């Protein structure tokens, strides 16, 4: 299955979830929000949300400065 992550096409396992995607990228899920097809995925759904072919994902780093 092919998905786009931050503009780059990546091959993922057919049973990939947001959790497995972040793990494969070595990203700490506490530092980012994950946007899937222009919608932020609720953090509590990371294990449940199965990625599908041609999903467009963006990893958004949190910023907290002011």
């Amino acid at each position, binding site marked *: 299955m092919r998905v786009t992550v931050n503009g780059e096409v990546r091959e993922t396992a057919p049973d990939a979830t947001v959790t497995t995607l972040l793990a494969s990228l070595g990203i700490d899920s*506490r*530092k980012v*929000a994950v946007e899937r097809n222009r*919608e932020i995925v609720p953090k*509590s759904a990371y294990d449940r949300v199965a990625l599908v072919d041609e999903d467009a994902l963006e990893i958004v780093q*949190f*910023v*907290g*400065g*002011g």
Partner: protein
Amino acid sequence: MAFSTDETERYTRHILLKEIGGPGQQRLKAATVAIVGMGGLGAPAALYLAAAGIGRLLLIDPDAVALSNLQRQVLYRTADVGAAKVAAAAAALHALNPHADTDARAVRLVEANATELLEGAHLVVDGTDDFATRFAVNAACHALGVPLVSGAVGRWDGQIGVFASGVTKGAPCYRCFVPETPPDVEPCAEAGIVGALTGVIGAMMALEAIKIVTGAGSPLAGRLLLFDGLGADARTVRLAADPACPVCSGGQIR
């Protein structure tokens, strides 16, 4: 409330807009807006909100003006260095618009005093620089049933959203976006920040506040605007309430 001749002339460009007009300008005058954090975001937001004719501005920040603030906090002058930010801000805002009342609170907002500090505000604008304060502001806004305009910056990036979990059933709160404090996020003092970016995001926060108060257009509720200053790119994404959110439990009004 009738407008004086000075006010009518001052706000002419607003009154010309069909989405604001005289009634919208009256709503701005009748509004109390709290600004938490009078730094890179709060300073430009306060300038535009005072200029726009918000009747009362509650300014909350415990810090004094530092020389390194002046690269972006354009509300302050070199002579203000060392003065309490809220006092310097109140003087500058009064000079800009004597019709805007200010209430300066030189205190740090924390979980224990947040509700008390924000009570009476119709809208809260959060431009603070740490997640603990952002969480405290969000929880208080949810409990008080007040909409929150929240903006954040880091290096070249800005994020802004309107969180109305205490107002609209099913609307997300800030914790639906950031559930827990992200580890190792560098504050602006360590990571650096472009001054002009804080102006962009701070002005957008004021714009969202003006829209909410006047009822103009579509606020960024249930959406986030992500601004990439380096790439000169911006996009909006949808944000839903998270049923597991520790504050709003999926947009439940208290």
